[in-house]
Every structure is written in C-alpha cells, then in structure tokens.
C-alpha cells in the first residue's frame, strides 16, 4: 500500500520535473514555432547560475546566511537564462522564424557551443551544489513513506511558474500583445505592436523558465556541461504529446509521461520503462498527430 502511494507521488514528482523542463519549450515551440534544441543548455545555464550563487554566498556571506542562497538562486537563474535567451533571439533566432527545421539545426549548434563553453569555464567534471538544509528530509505521511521536501518544493515551484505564466499570458498587457503576435503577426504589426520586441520577450521568458528548471534540477541531479542533453528529448516529447500552443496540453503531456514512466519502470526496469513510454508516445501520435490538446485551424499548412 505505501509503495503505491509512494509511486503515485514519484510519478507526480517526475511529472512536475518534466513539466518544469518543458514549460519554457512550450512557449518557444508552442507559441513561436521555434525548435530550440539549445533549451537543454539554457537549463544547464540555470543550474550553473545556482552553483555560482551558492559560491557567492559561501565566499562573501556569513555561514548562517548560506541556507538562503537558494531563495536568491531561483530568480538569479531566471534572469541569467533570460539574458542568454534574449541575446540568442536577437542574434540568431530572429533569422529563423518560419523555418522550424532550420531553427532546430541551428540551435543544436548553439547548444554544442554552450556546452563547450561551460566545459571551458567550469571544467568537464560535475560541480556540486549543496542543497539548503531547509529542504533536507521530508514529510512523513505514514511509516516508510517519506515525501522529500525537495520534490514537494519542485511541485510547488511548477505550480508557481504555471500560475504566473497564466497571469502573464492571459491577464497582462504584455501577454495580450504576445498572443496577438502569435495568432496573427501581420495584423498585430499593423496595429502597432512591435513584433520584434514581443518575439524577443517571448523567447527570453521561455529561456528564463528553462533557467528556473535548471535551478530546481540542482536539487536532484548532476550539474555538468551535458546536463541539458539528458532532458531535451523528454521535454520535446512532453510538448509534442501535449499538443502545441496550449499550456493545458503541456501539463497533461507531462503528467502522462511522468505517470506512465513511473508505472512502467516499476513494473519492468528503467531501460525497458523508457522504451515503453517512447513507444507509447510514438503510437499515440499516430492516432492523434496533433497531440492531446489540439488547436484546430483552417490554414492550409
């Protein structure tokens, strides 16, 4: 019984991680139709930002303050990845709108460069991030069932990201412009919306969220130059499975993959579990090529 409960929680936890990793992609891919293969590297940048924040606290602040580095690391990761995203959009991505496959290839090249950059700066080996002590341990709900605070924290973080994204996209002026541009670029431009600015902002926000994901991942996994490569394909699967252009789809996609992954892994083993999940995704997309939540349009392509 505890095992099932724990597995349910594990599934939820994996879903939340996948969602966090895929959220940024859902924006850049879903709204802008840019396939950003460097998304994984933006996650990596977020993780290294956390590492740097930790080091700053270690070096310049009293030890009693150390635990609070993480509170600063979340926004720091966002901002740094945001800036990287902004630079990337302005120098490269803007040449690639309307060429999704080319954007995939070019950003893969960018990813390669960023990985190598990280390797040159921080060295090839992983670096260690000590998680704050207030996230150690977990919530005991019954004997033998411990829900780690870190995983709970990530779930909370995802919810926070989702809510703020919802408010940004659907309730703010900026968000309205963003939707306008994504739905009808020319019309929006005619109405005086600076599409250049909106594109840059949208891409940067997607990147910033990748940074937050990177920050969260330091709690659970390795922090190294190849961190991004572990998540990028999964992230794309989430977005594609969920259906492009709707946040709800991304949430459902992440939950689906996370839950089934946990289930299959529990039944079989990690390798086979992964294979089964991917086979299911491929099969599902044959059935519903547009994903779980599809936006129907009348345009020819």
């Amino acid at each position, binding site marked *: 019984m505890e095992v099932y409960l724990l597995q349910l929680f594990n599934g939820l936890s994996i879903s939340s991680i996948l969602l966090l990793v895929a959220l940024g992609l859902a924006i850049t891919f879903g709204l802008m*139709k840019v396939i950003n293969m460097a998304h994984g590297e933006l996650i990596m940048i977020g993780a290294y930002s956390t590492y740097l924040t930790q080091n700053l606290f270690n070096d310049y602040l009293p030890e009693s303050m150390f635990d609070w580095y993480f509170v600063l690391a979340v926004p720091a990761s966002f901002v740094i990845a945001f800036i990287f995203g902004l630079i990337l959009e302005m120098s490269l991505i803007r040449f*690639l709108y309307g*060429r999704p*496959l080319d954007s995939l*290839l070019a950003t893969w090249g960018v990813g390669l*460069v960023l990985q190598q950059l990280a390797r040159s700066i921080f060295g090839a080996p992983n670096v260690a991030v000590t998680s704050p002590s207030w996230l150690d341990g977990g919530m005991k709900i019954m004997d033998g069932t411990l829900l780690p605070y870190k995983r709970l924290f990530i779930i909370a973080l995802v919810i926070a990201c989702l809510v703020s994204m919802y408010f940004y996209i659907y309730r703010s002026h900026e968000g309205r412009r963003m939707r306008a541009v994504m739905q009808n670029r020319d019309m929006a431009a005619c109405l005086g919306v600076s599409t250049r600015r909106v594109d840059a902002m949208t891409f940067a926000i997607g990147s910033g969220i990748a940074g937050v994901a990177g920050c969260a991942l330091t709690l659970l996994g390795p922090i190294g130059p190849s961190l991004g490569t572990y998540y990028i394909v999964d992230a794309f699967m989430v977005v594609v499975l969920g259906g492009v252009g709707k946040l709800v789809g991304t949430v459902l996609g992440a939950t689906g993959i996370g839950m089934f992954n946990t289930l299959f892994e529990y039944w079989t083993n990690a*390798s086979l579990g992964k*294979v089964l999940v991917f086979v299911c995704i491929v099969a599902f*997309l044959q059935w519903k090529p547009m994903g779980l939540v599809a936006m129907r349009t009348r345009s020819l392509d």
Partner: protein
Amino acid sequence: MRLQKLTPQRLWILLGYTAAAAALFSAPLFVSDFRLNLLAKFLAFAIVALGLDLIWGYTGILSLGHGIFFGLGAYAMAMYLKLEASGGKPPDFMGWSGLKELPLFWQPFQHFGFAVVMGIAIPALLALVLGYFTFRNRIRGVYFTILTQALVIITTTLLVGQQAFTGGTNGVTGYSSLLGFSLGSPDTKRALYLITVVVLISIFVLCRFVIGSRFGKVLRAIRDGENRVRFIGYNPATYQMVVFTLSAAIAGLAGMLFVLHVGIISPSMLGIVPSIEMVLWVAIGGRGTLIGAALGAILMNWAKSEFSTAYPEGWLFFMGALFVVVVVFMPKGVAGLVGQLKFRRKRREPEHERVRNPAV
C-alpha cells in the same frame, strides 16, 4: 532523361566526373594504407549523406534518425563478421552475459549473402513501417523529426539493454576475416576501398536517376507544398514512404561498408549526436545537390579527423558555430554558395530562395 546534345560544357562536366572517379580509383596508389582506410570510411559516410539528401534536400523531410538505419546495416554485417571470427560459436560477449547458445536470430547471419540482404532489408523495412504510419497520418515537418528522435532513443536503449544479444554499449567488434580474406591484410583493405568507391558511384548514379525522373520532380513538389501535391492527384504519403525507405536502405548499405573499414559498431554510432552530425554534413555541403551532400560528408569528416585532435575544444566550438552559420545564412550550403556566386555573375534567373525566408 532526354538525350541532350553534347555541348562543350556538358563535356567538361563529364570529364570532371570522370577525373573525380579516376582520382578515387587511383587513390590506393599514392595514399598510405591508414589514410586509405580513413578515406574509405569517409566515402561510406558520403553514401549516407546521399541518402539523407534524397529525403531532406529533395523531399523536405528531416530525419534525425538516420543513425539507426546506418547502424542496423552495420550490425547486420558485424553479426556476420563476428560469427566468422568465432567460427559459428556464440561470440565472446554472449559468454560474459551468461548466454551459452547462439540465439536463433543470429544463426542465419553466418551466411554472408543473408547478412548483406538483411543489412539493406532491415533498415528499409523499419523505415517502411515507420513511414507508412507517420506519412499516412500526415505527421510531418517538425513532428516527424521529433518522432525520429524518439525512435533513436528506443533503438539505442534496446541495443544497450539487450547486451547478451547485441553486445551492449561495447557493440560488436573483434573481427578476423571476410569470406576468408583477412581483414587485417592491406590487400583486402584496398579491395574494400575500391568496392566502396564503386558503391558510392553507383548510389550517386542511382540518386541522380531518381531525382532526374518525374518521381524526383514530385518529391521536390512535395518539399515545396505537400498539400498542393495532393490536389494534383498524387498521394504524397506513398512518395514519402518510398523515398524514406530508399534512403534508409542506402544508409544501411553505408553502415555495412563502415563496419568493414572501421571494425566496430556500437550503439553510440546510432545515437542522436551521430544522427544530427549526418544532417550537418548535408547541410554544410549543400542540401538539394547530391555532389554537395557527398562532399560535405567527406570534407567534414576529414576536417574532424585532422583538427579534432589538435584542438579538441576548438573543434567543438568550430563545429557548433559552423552549423549555426551555415544553417542560418547559407541554407544551400557550400554548393549553394558556389551557385549563388554564379547567379550574381549571370543573373539569368532571379534569386528567390530568399523569398521563402519570412524574416522580413
């Protein structure tokens, strides 16, 4: 194709190709065995690039899973070589994975002919099945590309996980001979090189025929506007399926040659990175021109083996940057660049590739 008059220009082109072929055929005379072996490997890669160009350059389908087809061909050949080395007994890795008997599906691979047929048929069949479902269901563009990535993950995870049957991450290596000829002997190596040259030229001619035919024109039409093609009365799915299968078969063939030259195949050769690198060769050489794709493969690999060691870090920076620059600013690759220079001089036809770039 129609018979055309032998203008001086066509004569030059013909001479050029003949000279290139002659250079390839005579390479064993003035290149060391080691370099010849390298060149042979590059030529095998050039064959994959040709196949990849058929679907990407001409049909507009981007597959990031060609490593699989390449790898499956390679595995078929490797299984034969391994069995020839072990004399039909279960290969070494089965032993240390606890397998005492040769599995049933390995047994026919003792026969060279069977292995060669399978090396082409298995990748082709896999492509056919995948293509049948995805193209019929109109999964295309980016979605198709991402699906091929999923396929890569499935295949490599299975190959790695089924160590007893596949050799796991180590892959299959340690061969001795091919049809009784020692693989270590320089003569065998030269012969294999020449075979590779012949295969490359044959595949090149085959691809030329395909793209020169009306079939090839339909492929290009699909690239320009898949939906429009439907309303003319073609079923794009069939065409895509056929060309995808052909491309996979070519990749499988190249994989078989690769194993003969390199002496090892492992799941890492089927992964996402090698698959993307294959696309990179085509992108740099010039998608949509066969010669560009083949040259891209040869040049990129040559550059990699020359420079990657001297500057392992610099090489990755260089490769990443090159990828970005070529894809963004030279969508037709090096071959296209040469073409553009020509257009600039002559201006006989308007340059409209830019029109398709909606960054305006």
